[in-house]
């Protein structure tokens, strides 16, 4: 039997709120492997930070069990858990120097002062911030404080590092750089990272696996590719990236995870079914990403073999630099967005507004979701 680094078993967390009870985490179960970069992704208030705080031990679950390295965490206070946290606002102690901040956790373990000082200096090297040990946190920039927070947690060599939107307070460019650095650092130290973020792009670029949460429920767990290409629910497809939703009726299921659906105008197309699709027939939604839709002038036989082809009218086009965004009407009230990369000059304005075109895509580019 494999033991996981972190295992959540049917976790429920409720808070008292104005006389009522609010369920922040609703029956969450997940297993996180050793050395994994695991992202908890969801909009604010979805329960991702509460989940992190439960693992850290700042909150106790209302029901369910938490295991870290196979050990049950009931009754074990935060200060005895083999995890460390990088807080959203860093929570660096303002009355201590950078060095004292990093040494704090070591001294709590009884590490001798001289040894702690040496380890603190090494930790600062590791986050590429040597020589700031004597400064106070407020004398550092946001990005530097972020690195100190990271060093303070990593110097403890935890089994699991918990990160609560650690890049949230940084500006865009710095955030991009830090994403790469964090990922490299994680590979380097080999510690399991549990990373809370509301930024889907951040989760997709950094994580080995992503758990998408909404309203306290863990909706789907999978690799970034699975989450992006085979979203399990309407919410996920909408939350992650841009998606077209086409109302349809499921007519029949076919082998290999495909099905026949009928669009509003009566056209039948073949589409890939979501793994978690409950419906066997009846109203469903077909999701397709804008970059998966190809456009051809009507009559030019671009749609090959098994590809789906649909007639449409171009109602709008928008040049956005790398891509051009086309708005295409397939039925009376259904508009799709397609993104075509501007790989060559002529393509950018290849189609005129009002022109009849043919849209084509491979059935596996679609996902049929419950309505």
């Amino acid at each position: 039997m494999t033991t996981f680094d972190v295992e959540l078993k049917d976790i429920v967390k409720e808070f008292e709120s104005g006389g009522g009870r609010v369920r922040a985490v609703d029956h969450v179960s997940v297993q996180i492997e050793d050395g994994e970069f695991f992202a908890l992704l969801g909009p604010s208030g979805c329960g991702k930070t509460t989940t992190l705080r439960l693992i850290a031990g700042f909150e106790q679950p209302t029901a369910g069990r938490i295991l870290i390295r196979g050990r049950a965490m009931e009754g074990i206070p935060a200060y005895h858990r083999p995890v460390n946290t990088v807080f959203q606002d860093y929570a660096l102690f303002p009355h201590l120097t950078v060095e004292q901040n990093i040494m704090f956790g070591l001294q709590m373990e009884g590490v001798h002062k001289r040894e702690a000082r040496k380890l603190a200096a090494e930790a600062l090297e590791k986050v590429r911030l040597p020589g700031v040990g004597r400064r106070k946190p407020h004398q550092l920039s946001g990005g530097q404080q972020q690195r100190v927070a990271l060093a303070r947690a990593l110097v403890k060599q935890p089994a699991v590092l918990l990160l609560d939107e650690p890049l949230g307070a940084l500006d865009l460019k710095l955030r991009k750089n830090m994403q790469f650095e964090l990922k490299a650092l994680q590979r380097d130290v080999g510690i399991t990272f549990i990373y809370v973020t509301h930024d889907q792009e951040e989760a997709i670029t950094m994580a080995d696996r992503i758990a998408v949460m909404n309203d306290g429920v863990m909706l789907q767990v999978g690799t970034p590719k699975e989450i992006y290409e085979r979203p399990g629910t309407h919410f996920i497809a909408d939350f992650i990236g841009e998606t077209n939703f086409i109302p349809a009726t499921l007519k029949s299921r076919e082998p290999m995870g495909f099905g026949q659906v009928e669009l509003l105008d009566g056209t039948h197309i073949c589409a890939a079914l979501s793994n978690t699709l409950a419906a066997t027939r009846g109203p469903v939604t077909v999701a397709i990403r804008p970059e998966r839709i190809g456009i051809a002038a009507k009559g030019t036989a671009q749609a090959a073999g098994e590809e789906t082809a649909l007639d449409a009218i171009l109602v709008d086009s928008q040049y956005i630099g790398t891509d051009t965004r086309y708005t295409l009407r397939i039925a009376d009230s259904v508009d799709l967005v397609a993104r075509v990369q501007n790989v060559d000059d002529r393509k950018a304005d290849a189609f005129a507004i009002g022109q009849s075109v043919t849209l084509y895509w491979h059935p596996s580019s679609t996902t049929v979701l419950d309505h």
Partner: protein
Amino acid sequence: MRQNGFLLALPTIAWLVVFFVLPLVIVLVVSFMSRGRGGVAELPFTPAHYERAFGIFSIILWRSIGLAGLTTVVCLVVGYPLAFFISTRRRRLVQQIALFLVILPFWTNFLIRTYAWRILLGEQGTINGLLLSLGMIDEPLTMLNTQFAVLVGLVYGFLPFMVLPIYASVERFNFRYVDAANDLGANDVRTFMRVVLPLTLPGVLAGCALVFIPSVGAFVTPDLLGGTKGLMIGNLINNQFGGSGNMPLGSALSIVMMAVVMLSLLVYVFANRRDAGA
């Protein structure tokens, strides 16, 4: 603009010069003069009053400093947890009610409240009566007219001055730091000593100064509750200026007391600066 600013401050400066600096200089001069008929000051100049202040009266001086110090310590030990409790209530209304209760005693005259303690602490007082009727003691305890009674009265009187600044400090304290300290392996005691206390120290220092300074010079409380055993420097000064007193001696004692207060303020400023700078 700079001159306008000076003009704005002028009334205050004038007030302070006339009613503070000038009297202070007079007191300083008088303290070095001789005692005349009826206790008034007259020439020649003499250091005799200071010799007495540090001589036979030094026991009362030290008692005042000791009682004020003890009052400060007790207020801190009682007031810190109370302030912490109030400022960590989730509901704003609960906080406001609790703070209201802390300052509620101010609605009654201080003299009356101190008299009330005489009734509580007396030989036939409420506390002795209760203990006797419960059979916990056989004879009434002597509490009134002791230093203990003075301590109780001072703590009672000045506790709000400790609670309020600490409350303000804890209110501003970011409890994320407690999470961070716990996360780094500090248990609750160490978290308090290493993180919470240092970060709420400005409130603690302000509270200590606000309790210690008026306690040193207190005279109503020791007068009513301390009798002769609980006499403090404030009473001594008070006596020198009434009836057949000794104004030069009273002045000298006032200067000595002021020096004690100034010293404690220096400690306060120094501690605050070290806290901010280190």
